[in-house]
């Protein structure tokens, strides 16, 4: 009986200590995180999907963005720089923007948010969900389960909720997201957001001014070639 009580106390102390330790661990800052091989999705094979795009198909410049919906730097870029880029470059037909998923495994809800965006994309509203996820980014700070909030976003942008729920529950696009992560890994993406402009990695500080200068330069080069 004494041995039983000793074992009981030992399990309680070890388990309680492990729980306390788990609550004390803070994730590293997003910009310094190294992507690990996270949990591979269990359904939906990659289908060759190359990301959602906005902008003219005939634009001379394509920017590919590897991003994570839970990353604060990505949210800052999407809310501060992207509207200007949209107005000055995308709307004028100078740039086609391609969004690729790179959910960092240390973020609890990145993949879930990416799934929500893809499920919105299935109904033709990827960019609307993209904006909801980034402009209403409080969910990423609270650490609480955002399931019902994302569903509210889906409702707010006019999605068919039954289709959205079915898509989310079946993780229909998990394979696409994983394929995007693997592609990013191959390209050496090690943080978010990371940009590639016409296939070359963008190394500067990602501001609308920097993109405008680079795009104008690339467009001039293209025009000057015979």
């Amino acid at each position, binding site marked *: 009986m004494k041995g039983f009580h000793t074992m009981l106390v030992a399990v309680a102390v070890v388990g309680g200590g492990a729980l306390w330790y788990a609550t004390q661990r803070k994730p590293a800052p997003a910009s310094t995180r190294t992507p690990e091989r996270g*949990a591979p999705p269990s359904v939906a094979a990659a289908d060759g999907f190359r990301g959602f795009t906005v902008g003219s198909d005939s634009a001379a410049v394509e920017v590919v963005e590897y991003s994570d919906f839970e990353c604060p730097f990505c949210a800052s870029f999407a809310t501060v720089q992207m509207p200007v880029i949209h107005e000055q470059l995308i709307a004028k037909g100078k740039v086609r923007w391609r969004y690729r998923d790179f959910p960092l495994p240390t973020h609890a809800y990145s993949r879930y948010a990416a799934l929500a965006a893809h499920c919105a994309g299935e109904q033709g509203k990827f960019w609307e969900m993209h904006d909801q996820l980034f402009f209403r980014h409080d969910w990423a700070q609270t650490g609480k389960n955002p399931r019902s909030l994302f569903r509210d976003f889906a409702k707010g942008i006019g999605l068919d909720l039954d289709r959205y729920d079915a898509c989310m529950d079946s993780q229909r696009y998990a394979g696409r997201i994983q394929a995007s992560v693997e592609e990013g890994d191959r390209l050496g993406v090690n943080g978010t957001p990371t940009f590639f402009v016409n296939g070359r990695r963008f190394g500067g500080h990602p501001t609308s001014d920097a993109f405008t200068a680079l795009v104008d330069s690339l467009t001039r080069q293209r025009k000057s070639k015979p």
Partner: protein
Amino acid sequence: MRRRQAIVLLALVGLLLALYLSLYKLGLIGTLQCGTGSCEYVQTSRYAEVLGMPVAFYGVVGYAVLFVVGLAGVQPRLVTDRRVTVLLAALSSLGLAFTLYLTYIELFVLHAVCRWCVVSAVIIAAIWALSMWGVRRTD
């Protein structure tokens, strides 16, 4: 006696595990240590809540009740009391039925398995087996 002690220990481990998943749901743990499982998908699906309450909370309550009843059952006054045996069997049967439902959802609806849910399923199955063994014994 030994069976009940084993049930108490297993219930304590299950309680700690359910507390871990509950702390995650409350946002007090950033990321689940899940290895190769799909804990995040499972824990953020709509099936991770029943009647508006996270499934993990039911686990905390269930294991806590099993722990308390089991602990009472190893006290000298109640160690031969068959009512405790029957109560443990009834409670663990409820827990096992709920676990089987959740496992079905994981395998056939979500097509994703949460490693911690599997551990919990093994624990409740072991508790159920021990408690049913106690019911069958007449000595």
